[in-house]
């Protein structure tokens, strides 16, 4: 309900400005929930001789195009007016054009560096995208006008987004000290009550006394439920908002978006279409409707515990891989978390990244997201939506499924850092090469001591202060969970989950289950992490220089020098598996010397350290096959399937290997994958599938496949021989 919340802030400050008294009267009516009277009042101002008043009147009536034209005239008449620029900027912000709004707010600041509402406008622009500069600019506004209650209200809102209810309460009370009708300050206070399971908030009673139609307050609460992943409650509060004012289109849109997140597509579409028909067409509404229109291209595969939603064009390829993995994850978590989910978990896989992005719009920490969980619903990119090797889909499923269990177990009362940290930990627990790596960004953060204390770690996800902070926060949260498991065991994790379910704070959960104060925990964790990473962090630049030199030597043909340089620094940073890695350089040097075994050995270390470069892994698979190491080749090919299942060559190679090792069912799966990829060589692909069926003693299916091969290529001799064998 962000935009209406912001509008009300605007009304508060603009009413204090130098304006026509009539405009203030209209706004007063609106502020007190007399919406029909306010509309009549605004309509009466449309004939004002002042284009600025007309602009505000149209704005009040929600007639954006006409308001825009009038603002343009007012801007022309008063080119140096900070007020006109800032109000026009607010119109753009309300119309979902934060970029244009920012330009006007900047102009307003340039026109009058002491005009506090312009700083507040900029703060709101940043708040839309969870940018930490929102807070700085709100403070700038307050510096210029300490009685700008709307700035305090925004700060309260931002603090609660960081799950800092103490600061949020403090800021909201400051707003109320300035204006006892600060509706949005009260809405934040009411939200704190609602989040703490106090549905009857006294603050809502006070709000309704001021404005009986103030649905925005419930929408504010819904927003906080939403960013805390409590989508059912978010839906319930958006409905309450609409009961008070059914023209709150942003609330209706968010209702639709959240219904869609929970898989309630029919009503989602109805709500979103209502918004569209009312000309409320922000990016979330339009893109969500587009996504709903594409759902006819998807097919749902149900088992007792899972629902897998795949695009028809890749269902045949992906289902045999994802469905068993999903079921395996469910079984693992049922055992580990000692619970069953209340219904089947639904996994939606989007081959078009933009469709996945629609699922994440409006949520904090979007950058780089691979999957997102809404209760029992998980949405994620399909492997085909990303470049080969860019992400491990199985690891992502494992991560998101952890959220499903933890959110369910805690009734969605878990802080962001813990559920993310545990999900990252679970990836690593499933396979050491999964999960977050110690990347150069993390090393830089460790070097600068930028990791956050556990009680503040949510801030790193929601309002990052430097570009890599979200990813660094994932790493840190994951390591915290690793640390807990290493020192206190898995039961401590289960204990913390139970504590959150019992509405305990992070400090309480840590003290109850780890039996030490949170400050001591932070200290112990930092010491533990330093032991694990200290050597890499302190030698990072040495490693970097060494690798640069090694690659320079290689380029200049000095292979021995390159090998020496790479070898000298390798131990400093074994976790590095990005581009131009030590592993790949060393393996290439081995190959240049004709030492395939040496190269394979190094590349197996690369693979096991988390390397995902597809070409490198394929090279390794070939080396292992040629060297007669089928078990290692299987590990490599399995990993390739996790990071690039669209590669027919990998499936073909894997199928042949499985056939030689006696795994006929695996060979069938791989041969079917080749066919699903619509290979150029159709005859060969049917033949390979026939061979796999034959090995599995499924003669009828084998014969069907060999006939399919020969239908394309009647003189395919190997297939002819197989047909003769199968016809004996």
């Amino acid at each position: 309900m962000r935009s209406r919340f912001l509008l009300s802030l605007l009304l508060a400050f603009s009413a204090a400005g130098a304006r026509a008294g009539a405009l203030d009267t209209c706004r007063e009516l609106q502020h007190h929930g007399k919406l029909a009277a306010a509309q009549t009042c605004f309509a009466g101002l449309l004939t004002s001789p002042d284009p600025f008043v007309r602009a505000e009147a149209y704005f009040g009536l929600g007639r954006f195009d006409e308001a825009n034209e009038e603002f343009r005239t007012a801007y022309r008449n008063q080119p140096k007016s900070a007020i006109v620029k800032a109000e026009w900027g607010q119109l753009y912000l309300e119309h979902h054009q934060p970029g244009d709004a920012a330009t006007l707010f900047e102009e307003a600041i340039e026109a009058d560096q002491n005009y506090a509402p312009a700083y507040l406008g900029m703060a709101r622009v940043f708040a839309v995208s969870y940018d930490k500069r929102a807070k700085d600019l709100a403070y700038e506004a307050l510096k210029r006008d300490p009685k700008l209650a709307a700035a305090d209200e925004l700060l309260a809102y931002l603090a609660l987004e960081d799950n800092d209810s103490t600061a949020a309460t403090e800021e909201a009370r400051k707003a109320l000290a300035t204006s006892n009708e600060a509706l949005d300050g009260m809405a934040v206070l009411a939200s704190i009550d609602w989040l703490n399971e106090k549905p009857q908030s006294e603050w809502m009673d006070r709000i309704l006394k001021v404005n009986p139609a103030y649905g925005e307050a419930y929408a504010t609460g819904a927003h906080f439920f939403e960013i805390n992943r409590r989508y059912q409650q978010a839906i319930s509060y958006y409905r309450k908002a609409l009961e008070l004012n059914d023209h709150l289109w942003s609330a209706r849109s968010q209702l639709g978006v959240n219904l869609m997140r929970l898989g309630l597509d029919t009503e989602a579409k109805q709500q979103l279409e209502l918004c569209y028909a009312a000309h409320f067409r922000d990016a979330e509404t339009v893109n969500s409707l587009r996504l709903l229109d594409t759902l006819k291209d998807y097919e749902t595969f149900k088992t007792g515990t899972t629902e897998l939603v795949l695009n028809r064009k890749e269902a045949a390829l992906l289902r045999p891989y994802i469905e068993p993995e999903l079921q395996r994850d469910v079984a693992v978590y049922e055992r580990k978390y000692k619970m069953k989910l209340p219904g089947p978990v639904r996994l939606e896989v989007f081959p078009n990244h933009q469709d996945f992005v629609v699922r994440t719009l409006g949520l904090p920490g979007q950058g780089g997201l691979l999957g997102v969980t809404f209760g029992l619903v998980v949405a994620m990119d399909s492997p085909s939506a990303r470049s080969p090797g860019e992400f491990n889909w199985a690891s992502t499923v494992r991560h998101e499924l952890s959220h499903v269990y933890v959110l369910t177990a805690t009734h969605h009362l878990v802080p962001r850092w813990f559920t993310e940290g545990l999900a990252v930990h679970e990836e690593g627990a499933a396979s050491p090469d999964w999960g977050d790596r110690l990347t150069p960004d993390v090393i830089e953060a460790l070097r600068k001591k930028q990791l956050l204390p556990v009680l503040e770690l949510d801030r790193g996800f929601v309002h990052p202060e430097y570009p890599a902070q979200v990813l660094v926060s994932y790493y840190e949260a994951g390591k915290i969970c690793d640390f807990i498991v290493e020192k206190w065991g898995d039961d401590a994790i289960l204990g913390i989950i139970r504590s959150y379910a019992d509405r305990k704070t992070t400090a309480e959960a840590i003290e109850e289950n780890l039996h030490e104060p949170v400050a001591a925990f932070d200290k112990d964790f930092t010491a533990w992490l330093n032991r694990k990473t200290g050597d890499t962090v302190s030698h990072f630049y040495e490693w970097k220089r060494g690798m640069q030199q090694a690659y320079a030597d290689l380029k200049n043909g000095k292979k021995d020098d390159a090998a020496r340089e790479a070898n000298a620094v390798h131990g400093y940073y074994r976790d590095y598996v990005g581009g131009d890695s030590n592993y790949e350089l060393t393996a290439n040097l081995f190959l240049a010397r004709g030492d395939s075994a040496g190269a394979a050995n190094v590349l197996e270390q690369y693979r096991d350290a988390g390397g995902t470069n597809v070409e490198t892994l394929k090279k390794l698979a070939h080396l292992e096959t040629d060297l007669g190491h089928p078990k290692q080749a299987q590990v490599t090919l399995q990993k390739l399937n996790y990071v690039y299942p669209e590669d027919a060559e990998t499936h073909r190679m894997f199928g042949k290997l499985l056939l030689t090792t006696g795994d006929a069912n695996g060979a069938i799966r791989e041969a079917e994958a080749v066919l699903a990829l619509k290979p150029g060589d159709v005859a060969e692909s049917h033949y390979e599938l026939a061979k796999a069926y034959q090995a599995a003693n499924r003669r009828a299916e084998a014969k069907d496949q060999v006939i399919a091969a020969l239908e394309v290529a009647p003189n395919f001799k190997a297939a002819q021989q197989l047909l003769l064998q199968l016809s004996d």
Partner: protein
Amino acid sequence: MAAAQTVGCSLRLLTVLFLAALAARGADYFVTIAGLGGLPEYDKQFSDWAAQLDRQFRENGPAAHVMTLSGSAATKREIQRAFEQLAAEIQTGDSFSLLLIGHGTFDGTDYKMNLPGPDITAAELAALLNRIRAERQLVVNMTSCSGASLSALARKNRIVIVATKSGNEKNATVFPRYWIDALRDPAADTDKSGSVSALEAFEYTEHKTAAYFESQKLLATEHPLFTDTGTADAVRDPKPENGQGLLAGSFLVLHPEADESKTVAPGKQKLIARKEDLEAKIDRLKYEKAAIPPDEYKQQLTALLLELARTQAEIDQ
């Protein structure tokens, strides 16, 4: 996939006829020209590709006439000189293939292939080709902007393949890499005949080129086109429905295996005839597939394929 199978089916009829006439077939001529790279890495790349093609074409046996011009030898003058010689030598029953590797340019009017010294235009290339008497010709222009050469090069009984759909696709192409692969990778021989036709090579290369851009999540900067109908109405997917692919299906660019009809023992000629009869029956059945109930089709097809397999086994004994 069904369409592709139908292509294979219709082409098989032609191939059967073609193979039957193999004894009367003329010689195969392959000319590869690698143009100016402009940068050392491109010069090396183009020469390497030309050398690889040269090796592949020589696998057709000692009767294949293979000529490769690259580096400083690939001047306009040298090309003209080579064509003068070939024009005198090549007979109507021979087949002739020209393969162009390098950078092309298009100024809105003329396509030019970059060469050391003066470049050569599409019209000049067409004029040289028109002097070659071989009735069956293949031109594979793998250069950037090669789409702009298509209208000048298209002619009856000439297969023209270009790496780009127009003169506006100016990036260096990956098409040659996959064309060379098509001559090496058994997967290109989709009908498992032991040879690779121009159609098979094109389909393989087109598939791999598209897959390359898809796998790299890059916008494709080249879209290969094909025509063998004598017109410039080129397509990306030759098939009977668009009337493309008939000539290319019988034009072999790689046929290292000996002609079976000439190598089997005299006593097995009847088996060869039987085999060809079965192949023709299979082709006819496949044509009629849509009109036959699926179970019946499967039954008939299985019977014919089984008999063909047994016949082949007897031939191979």
